[in-house]
């Protein structure tokens, strides 16, 4: 079974995407399943290690937190951009030591940091575990430090480690 479906989550989401983009019918279901099997084999030839998700129940909580954070920082960044030049905004670099080392968790963290306006992932060093993030509003440095290392990082470690 695991030889046939090396990446079950990937396969199921590909089938779902295929059906959504075409039409829900038996023919498309079979074609989509074949395609996702081939994609799964191709992917496992590239990456033999399968991402292990330890705790599925944390994922919705992560999603909701991220969603609210994206709305909040969209508003904050829009306000700063519209008052640019009058608000004395100073951008800054912050360095956050991370304890999470799992490659998949880091990939998700990079998506989180990038998707949230106001923070940009600049560099992560595997040997020191230090993440450098550029933040648009330097006055919020404490806040972002707190959010990344006390909210997102524990959730990602729960999910992946």
């Amino acid at each position: 079974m695991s030889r046939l479906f090396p990446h079950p989550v990937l396969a199921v989401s590909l089938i779902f995407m295929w059906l959504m983009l075409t039409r829900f019918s038996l023919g498309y279901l079979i074609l989509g399943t074949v395609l996702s099997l081939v994609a799964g084999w191709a992917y496992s030839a590239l990456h033999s290690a399968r991402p292990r998700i330890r705790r599925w129940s944390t994922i919705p909580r992560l999603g909701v937190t991220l969603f609210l954070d994206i709305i909040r920082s969209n508003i904050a960044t829009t306000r700063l951009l519209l008052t640019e030049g009058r608000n004395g905004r100073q951008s800054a670099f912050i360095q956050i030591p991370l304890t999470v080392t799992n490659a998949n968790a880091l990939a998700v963290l990079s998506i989180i940091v990038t998707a949230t306006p106001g923070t940009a992932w600049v560099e992560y060093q595997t040997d020191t575990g230090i993440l450098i993030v550029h933040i648009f509003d330097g006055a919020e440095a404490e806040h972002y430090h707190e959010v990344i290392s006390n909210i997102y990082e524990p959730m990602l470690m729960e999910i992946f480690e």
Partner: protein
Amino acid sequence: MSPLDSIPLFLAIPVAFFVFLGATLTLIGALGFARLNSFYDRLHAPTLATSWGTASVMIASSLMFSFIDGRAIIHEFVIGACIILTTPVTLMMLGRAALMRDRAERSDALPEEMHIRPRPQDPPAQT
């Protein structure tokens, strides 16, 4: 009669709201991109367009075409997922290239402590 005429008011208002919100956020992002001075600041402005700018246009499109076709249409969210999953790749590449250049030039854009790459505190023992 164009399909647009059949849209009732209760649907037209949220659709218009989301399209307007998305377009406005994208415009503000683009203006910010043009106005900001430093490279690192400029990384931030377009994220308005890639986060809620895209999301709200997607929501509007999904609402309207689901109503016109009479079935749930969520193709748009595939676009959104692809945008969210792929932006870190380009952003990271640009950010790291800029950082490497600024470190090599000892540029003023970087604070003092970032001019050298931090060393591992306890290097692994040589065996």
